[in-house]
């Protein structure tokens, strides 16, 4: 086999490792299913907004409950900043776009659509824990939507 200089004993041992892991810790079917389905999110119309800031916010005294995070996503087309607060398996997202927009939250549940107020502010409840991405259509430039990079919340 090219490239690797594994001797036969090493190769056998690695094969053993793989067969054991296949046995005791296979990739769950649900992961394979969601990985295959991920391609449906291929959007060529939206510009990708990269994560620029991810800060854990100190919450008064209490650790591990009511955790909040502050996230900022930026692209040439616009900026989205929001806080995520946890309540069990559900997340609430409160934030602001740099101008008025219509938002769609992509997450493990059905997509949630909200409109910001005229300051760009928004509040979204009922977001499920797991990977989340926001698709954002600005009202002044609807032809140039942005979409935030996926992140686990």
């Amino acid at each position, binding site marked *: 086999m090219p490239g690797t200089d594994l001797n036969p004993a090493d190769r056998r041992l690695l094969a053993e490792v793989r067969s054991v892991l296949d046995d005791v810790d296979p*990739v769950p079917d649900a*992961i394979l299913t969601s990985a295959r389905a991920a391609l449906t999110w291929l959007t060529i119309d939206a510009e990708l907004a990269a994560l620029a800031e991810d800060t854990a916010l100190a919450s008064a005294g209490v650790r591990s409950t009511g955790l909040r995070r502050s996230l900022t996503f930026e692209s040439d087309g616009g900026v989205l900043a929001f806080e995520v607060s946890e309540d069990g398996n559900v997340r609430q997202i409160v934030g602001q776009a740099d101008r008025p927009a219509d938002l769609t939250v992509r997450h493990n549940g059905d997509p949630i659509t909200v409109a910001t107020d005229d300051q760009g502010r928004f509040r979204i409840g009922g977001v499920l824990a797991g990977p989340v991405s926001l698709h954002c259509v600005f009202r002044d430039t609807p032809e140039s939507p942005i979409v935030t990079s996926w992140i686990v919340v």
Partner: protein
Amino acid sequence: LQRPAPLDPGRAFPRRPGAPGAPRAHYRAQQLVSRVADARWEVVVDVDVADLVRAAGAGDQSAWNSLVERFSGLVWSVARGHRLGDADASDVAQTVWLRLVESLPQLREPAAVGGWLATTARNESLRLLRRSGLEVVEDDLGLESTPADEIYSPEAVVEAHERRDLVRRALDALPLRCRTLLRALAYSPDNSYADISVALDMPVGSIGPTRGRCLDRLRQGLRADAPHLLGE
């Protein structure tokens, strides 16, 4: 100590040959050998994978499924190598594939998608561990870092009759770096270095020796309890 993972794995994965800090990747030939002039970055293009990535980027579901088929074990093994539980490892794996979808249009080294996936899985795993408030210590390869007798207590050995338990225990006893390296090697197509050097932030030149040490340590662990597995 583990240095902080960059926020954006797309940025974190150095694509520019010879860029400062770029790892020495060595992609092996399958069909076409194309050596880049820069000797620090010897790239041998895997045409199959690159074609799959381009086709998937054009919306080809069957090409995408092939990528999932080929690399899902690698992604999963990196998350598990960081000792993530079911829910966290699932979040990481799901996110990694979603990230690849969003990155398909601008992926500049489609043939190196395996390394990209492994790197993203590592960064997401570390991000999740940090968020959970768990301290991430990338233990070195020092033999003293894992007291083997804790894992190989008489009680544990008595319980571990089955081959898979023995191997799993031996794996679990390894330091993070070894565990991740061996799991990734086992799941990387053809045990390739390419996917792994980037993921573990190791120069390709040191993977061979490290792999040797890690395999030796695994053997030591097995030798104690299961010499028959080593043919001894």
